[in-house]
């Protein structure tokens, strides 16, 4: 059985989520090698010790071989950046000899072994999970989930698995290249981070597998057609199949409301949510400042507005002029933006 390498991508603010992911992957796949990809640096005084984590390895954004990575990072918000590095990381792991690589979003929890994924990796180059695998029958479902998929991508890139075959490596190289240039939240222009890109994957690459099993990547957007049930046998099921992994998207903001909308009065999904929040609390990153992200502020501590990032990535002349966009002071990019009236 080829060794499976599994990674997730975070800033430190999502460390609690990544820990829950790693804990649950470990429980069901103790033989997998777990990687944590960090697009962040720890704040002063914050202790992060890999020996105390369920991860085997940590890779920092600076170790991905991205040219002038700080300048490149500046052009992304935290979601865009943590998504953009997924491509280079996938490519790196495959290049370094991994045979099977599985990416899982940090806000995923694994409830039982991902056997179908391992099985499919023996036959497919790339495996993707669609946001929805059943046509919607209500107007709300069409608007939220079908049109939502058309806007944000057919496949949810909280999960992707790749085999180190020729096509798998070709995919990884292509994905890395696109994400280095165009991992942007820009729906009007046909981009939504890494997801819209992967709409092209079944057309561009061979042997792509689409995992339709309702027990994988269960989330608010497909819950309506995959109700959660918990049987006397103690098994948790989604759409009648033993639940494999649940994607707790935005559980502390809009996510709970969407779960309520598509649970239709059933309460089982909220039992999962209670458990998930309990685990998040158990894995809280003690001592981490609220909303910490090393690439979120200028050197003087001011939050970097999105307008500054959009200008940075749109203007090659500006990027060429300011060598380190994070610097504060009268000759820095921050002061230039202020002078230009960018808020």
């Amino acid at each position: 059985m080829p060794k499976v390498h599994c990674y997730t991508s975070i800033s430190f603010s999502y460390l609690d989520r990544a820990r829950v992911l790693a804990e649950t992957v470990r429980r069901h796949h103790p033989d997998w090698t777990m990687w944590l990809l960090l697009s962040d640096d720890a704040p002063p005084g914050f202790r992060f010790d890999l020996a105390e984590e369920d991860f085997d390895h940590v890779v920092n954004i600076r170790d991905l071989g991205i040219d002038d990575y700080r300048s490149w990072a500046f052009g992304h918000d935290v979601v865009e950046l943590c998504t953009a590095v997924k491509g280079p990381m996938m490519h790196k792991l495959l290049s370094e000899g991994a045979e099977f690589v599985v990416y899982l979003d940090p806000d995923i929890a694994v409830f039982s072994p991902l056997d179908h994924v391992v099985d499919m990796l023996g036959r497919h180059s790339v495996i993707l999970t669609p946001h929805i695998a059943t046509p919607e029958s209500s107007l709300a479902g069409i608007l939220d989930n079908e049109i939502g998929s058309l806007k944000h991508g057919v496949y949810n890139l909280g999960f992707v698995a790749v085999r180190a075959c020729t096509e798998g490596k070709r995919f990884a190289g292509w994905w890395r290249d696109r994400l280095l240039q165009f991992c942007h939240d820009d729906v009007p222009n046909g981009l939504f981070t890494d997801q819209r890109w992967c709409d092209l994957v079944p057309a561009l690459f061979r042997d792509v597998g689409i995992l339709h099993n309702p027990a994988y990547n269960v989330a608010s957007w497909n819950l309506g057609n995959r109700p959660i049930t918990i049987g006397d046998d103690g098994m948790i099921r989604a759409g009648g199949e033993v639940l494999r992994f649940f994607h707790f998207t935005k559980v502390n903001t809009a996510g709970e409301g969407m779960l309520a909308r598509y649970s239709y009065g059933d309460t089982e999904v909220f039992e999962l949510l209670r458990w998930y929040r309990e685990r998040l609390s158990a894995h809280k990153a003690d001592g981490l400042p609220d909303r910490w992200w090393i690439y979120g502020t200028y050197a003087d501590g001011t939050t970097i507005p999105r307008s500054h990032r959009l200008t940075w990535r749109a203007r090659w002349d500006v990027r060429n002029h300011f060598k380190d966009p994070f610097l504060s002071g009268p000759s820095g990019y921050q002061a230039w933006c202020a002078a230009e009236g960018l808020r």
Partner: protein
Amino acid sequence: MDAIPNDYDRRGVIVPPTLEGWAYRLRRDPARETINHAISPRARAAHWQPVTREDPLPREELLSALEDAGVAQAAGWAVVFSHDHYLTVFGGTQNCMNDEEAALRHAGWTYLHFCPVQPLPMLSDPVPAHMMRLVASLNGVRLGVVTMADVATTVTLLGRTHRNLTFIIHQLLGHAPELIAALVTACPNAQTVFWAHDLFALCPSVHLLRNDISFCGSPPIGSPACGICPSGSERPGHVTRMGAFLANTCPTVLAPSATILKVWQRHTGFTGPTRVVPPCRVEFQSEAAPFNRGRPLRVGHLGAPLFAKGWQAFESLARWHQGDPRYEFIQLGTLTLDVPNIRHIYTQVSREDRHAMVKAVIEAGVDVAINWSLCYESFSFTAMEAVAGGAFVIARKGAGNVGSLVTAVAPNRACVIETEVELQALFAEGHILELAAGADRRTGHLVPSQGTGAILLQESGDA
């Protein structure tokens, strides 16, 4: 069009004053709130205080109290363990114990009871016997605080020669079962009775309510369902300790209903002797008052307005039918939530007035009682009170013994349905009016059993 002014009552319920009878919805979801507040038994235990700070009595004092009570000469001696002080706390299990004590003492037995000084929603962690403090009561009188070490020494000393010593275990919450098992095995001539009042033998969650919301049915230990329940992590150790207790004490297991005994046996794997001992029965009058069609059907909720006891289903109905001349909604109990369209009648059942609820149901003319408990009820006193009060009972199918109890006790006055949608349809379509009109309406009174007393006295020929 003018906006319809909404108002909100103090619990956040949207009350549209100009739209009486319309559906209402809560701004909050009680089911989700219940789930979100579910915590582990250990976390809950952290807030529980001891019932007393008294120092333990000297061992000699316990011994002399027993000698003064004539334990050695008594017809029998019951040494009883439960989770709280049955003489001052009122409830179903405590009722059984009071009846049991009365029957045994009437037959010349001595009744010695212990409950933990530190109440807990789980077993006590294993502790040395001298650290385990108990409140002792002898023949209905509180003696004081004792240690389990002194209890073991004293009871063993007197018990070795006693011809008729019985240990009765009503509830092990807060106890260290190893200490009680050691006491039992030190008295080889004694017999042991273990009550399955609930499903505590299977999980620290006594009603097997996973996340305080759903009856879990005792799934395999370590199952994913246990993995998402706050009681799940405590369960393996708990079940091991309870299993060892049953194996070491070889009890006769008594249960208030065949329903709960069946579940209990299936999941404990217990193969020893068992008996079903219902805590009470109904004696009906021979005549019934005719059904009164000249007023709204009176629909009642008996007992506390608790989510776990199905209050939400009752409140939903009451709000839905606000302004509906067919129905009147009544709540009988000590607590009220002051909900529109629900009339509260203060009713307190106590040791002194065990029949208060039955009398209140009769006096209020309750035609239909909704028993929508979310728990897997082991018996259901409120269902029996409703039946004795002459009411037709609507039971939830998954509520354990409720359905089988009411259909067995009063076959022509109950219906068992599965979902809240069916419940709502019963009222919206008015089918409940036909069911109530055609039901047996005889009232009656509850006759308590003697609990363990009946079994022990029967065995010893003292009945």
